[in-house]
């Protein structure tokens, strides 16, 4: 027989509630269930803390949920409260918006085992006269119970020894018992003996106290061995489960070692130097004020509001609502390009290039001005960055030869600094060799070609919707998956 730490079981309880009092001879004869180390280990420990705070309020003697012993049919039902009382209390005392929210929260707490319906294995709460009881802190999930099948077997066995209709096994429990009997056939005698011993102790208890303890124990098993169809709230995300078995959360890099003598010491110094370096760089970059960044967020939202289908109805019917897939076929079908879509091209060069039709149009404009090589170069550099490692070297040489060498076939006009930096990078070519130059070219395009494009007749015509999409060739080359043009293999 295992008893919990007395402080865990300490009674902050109303006198009517015959729960589990602290460390006295009246400790419930519950099973020697296994628990893990500390409640900090449970991934749900924050959740349990919050629920327990609420339960504390609920159990307050003066302003808590009204708990009483109900007389019915020559018997007494000890320590219960009704669902409607609970919901009403929650609406009054917690900051819940409405009944639905209260029910949701109540259901959550019941599913985790903090209170339970006295006559049902399904742990939920209904807003009516159904009776509920609080769980004893001994059985709270924050104690990190991990009951084993042998414990469950003893419990079910004990149940069959008691001649009370209210303790009859439900169908699924009977099935479970049969399965366990098979599983533990060799040591069933031992299990039976334990069940007998517990049963004997139970019989000595006061009738009302027994009612309460029995129901609490049953509720405990409803949490750990839920009825089929009910969610098992003790299931842990496997990612979190992995952490429970790890020694320490977070390795600290500052042990008290003498730095001069050990290798570890040298590593520490290195790490700290790196950290210090990064922090210095961060300090050099000045922070922008919150007011300004908030403005930026608001501005973005306002600009894109009309493209957010949760606020403004989209151009093409929402396919999941209308069952109409025309949204995805628009590229092939549509002859007109809406003004709304063209308007977006003015939000930024990135937006223009992301829309395949916008990009095509921009290229036409650039060709007219004989400045198409900049975009070609920039796009070639983007492609380079997406190549597998093995293809990088060749592509770098290709790009250099085509755009930046002295006898380049498609020379771009870069400033001397970009030229210098790139020449240096060419000594150790990798996928970022042209980043500096590409960034400059992008800026140039943005401030020069792009802004002229937006002011051009070509663009204005498109915007006014007077221009229809002409080239069918352009449509076929549009890949439906990616907004950026990719080579189709």
């Amino acid at each position, binding site marked *: 027989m295992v008893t919990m730490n007395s402080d865990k079981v300490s009674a902050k309880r109303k006198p009517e509630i015959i729960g589990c009092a602290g460390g006295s001879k009246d400790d419930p004869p519950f099973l020697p269930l296994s628990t893990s180390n500390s409640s900090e280990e449970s991934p749900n420990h924050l959740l349990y803390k919050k629920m327990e705070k609420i339960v504390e309020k609920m159990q307050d003697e003066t302003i808590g949920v009204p708990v009483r012993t109900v007389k019915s049919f020559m018997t007494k039902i000890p320590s219960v409260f009704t669902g409607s009382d609970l919901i009403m209390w929650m609406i009054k005392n917690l900051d819940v918006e409405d009944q639905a929210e209260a029910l949701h929260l109540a259901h959550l707490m019941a599913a985790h085992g903090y209170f339970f319906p006295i006559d049902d294995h399904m742990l939920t709460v209904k807003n009516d006269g159904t009776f509920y009881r609080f769980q004893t802190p001994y059985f709270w999930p924050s104690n990190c119970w991990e009951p084993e099948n042998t414990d469950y077997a003893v419990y079910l066995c004990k149940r069959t020894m008691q001649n009370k209709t209210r303790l009859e096994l439900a169908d699924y429990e009977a099935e479970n018992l049969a399965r366990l009997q098979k599983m533990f056939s060799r040591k069933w005698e031992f299990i039976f003996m334990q069940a007998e011993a517990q049963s004997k102790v139970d019989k000595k208890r006061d009738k009302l106290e027994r009612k309460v303890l029995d129901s609490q124990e049953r509720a405990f098993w409803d949490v750990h061995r839920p009825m089929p169809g009910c969610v098992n709230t003790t299931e842990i995300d496997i990612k979190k489960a992995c952490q429970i078995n790890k020694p320490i959360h977070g390795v600290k890099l500052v042990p008290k070692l003498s730095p001069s003598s050990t290798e570890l010491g040298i590593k520490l110094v290195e790490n700290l130097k790196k950290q*210090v370096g990064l922090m210095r760089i961060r300090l050099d970059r000045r922070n922008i004020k919150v007011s300004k960044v908030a403005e930026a967020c608001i501005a*973005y939202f306002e600009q894109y509001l009309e493209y957010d289908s949760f606020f403004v109805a989209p151009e093409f019917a929402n396919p999941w609502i209308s069952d109409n897939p025309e949204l995805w076929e628009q590229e092939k079908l549509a002859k007109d390009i809406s003004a709304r879509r063209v308007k977006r091209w003015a939000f930024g060069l990135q937006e223009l290039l992301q829309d395949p039709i916008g990009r095509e149009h921009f290229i036409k404009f650039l060709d007219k001005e004989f400045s198409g090589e900049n975009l070609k170069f920039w796009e070639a550099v983007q492609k380079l960055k997406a190549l597998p490692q093995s293809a990088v070297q060749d592509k770098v040489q290709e790009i250099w030869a085509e755009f930046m060498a002295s006898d380049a076939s498609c020379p771009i006009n870069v400033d001397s600094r970009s030229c210098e930096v790139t020449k240096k990078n060419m000594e150790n070519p990798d996928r970022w060799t042209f980043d500096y130059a590409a960034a400059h070219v992008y800026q140039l395009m943005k401030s020069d070609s792009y802004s002229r494009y937006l002011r051009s007749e070509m663009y204005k015509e498109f915007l006014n919707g007077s221009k229809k999409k002409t080239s069918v060739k352009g449509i076929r080359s549009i890949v439906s998956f990616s907004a950026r043009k990719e080579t189709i293999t």
Partner: protein
Amino acid sequence: MNELDSLRQEAETLKNAIRDARKAACDTSLVQATASLEPIGRVQMRTRRTLRGHLAKIYAMHWGSDSRNLVSASQDGKLIVWDSHTTNKVHAIPLRSSWVMTCAYAPSGSYVACGGLDNICSIYSLKTREGNVRVSRELPGHTGYLSCCRFLDDNQIVTSSGDMSCALWDIETGQQTTSFLGHTGDVMSLSLSPDMRTFVSGACDASAKLWDIREGLCKQTFPGHESDINAVTFFPNGYAFATGSDDATCRLFDVRADQELAMYSHDNIICGITSVAFSKSGRLLLAGYDDFNCNVWDSMKTERAGILAGHDNRVSCLGVTENGMAVGTGSWDSFLRIWN
């Protein structure tokens, strides 16, 4: 004073300076700045499709860039690619390890990736010449579970792991190009910036970090949460990002202000967040919770604007399509739902 001690002191001084710089930039709060913004009212979405087919908990999902197909991963050991409009299964891919924790769709649509307790990121080719789906590459190297992965393009993928690191891989050679070290807890999630130059990661050390992909360095660290960060996602302008944590709060952090802008929480919301995503304009922040619901937050006014209720177990993953027209949620109840 020896080198170690002087370095420690310097680090301490710099940390304080960084904190002071943050305070100095904090001249208002997002809630104050958006006080005059019109409220958006109640956001109500309905389930338009339910995708049935998985036989066990769904742990991850990711939309394809066509905003139509999506891939989901379940503990039943399968990766399923769905046509979310017709609800047909385009591909059902049996996995070598059933303990899968994450999946991703390549922007080109030609590949999907997944990984989990096997510590390996497996890349599957969807468009093989023979017409079947097969493993095209396995990326071993992490010494902890694979919690998240995202394709930069068909040849590069970023992963996060329970070994407290993130990594950039060259898929063709199967090598780790860059390793991102710095977190002191399992890294649970990552999100690529729209310009693909940086990504943000969230970990069990309660901090989020911004990384430069090219340099492999942590540019900024964002403390503030009180427990594990399970999910991160960039705000569409690429300058801010949201996080979801076991401490039952979501937070918005800004990169240029180097600090927290807003917190999304309520006393009655007590369960942890598993996944987060923004709507197209950034005004809505959708978050999936352990209490089976998905809450919709007004990201600017930090008020709850709606609830997506319908799952019978934890919402483990969610995502908004690239065109912003639908939300997909995946749950431990083995179903995926499409909402709008």
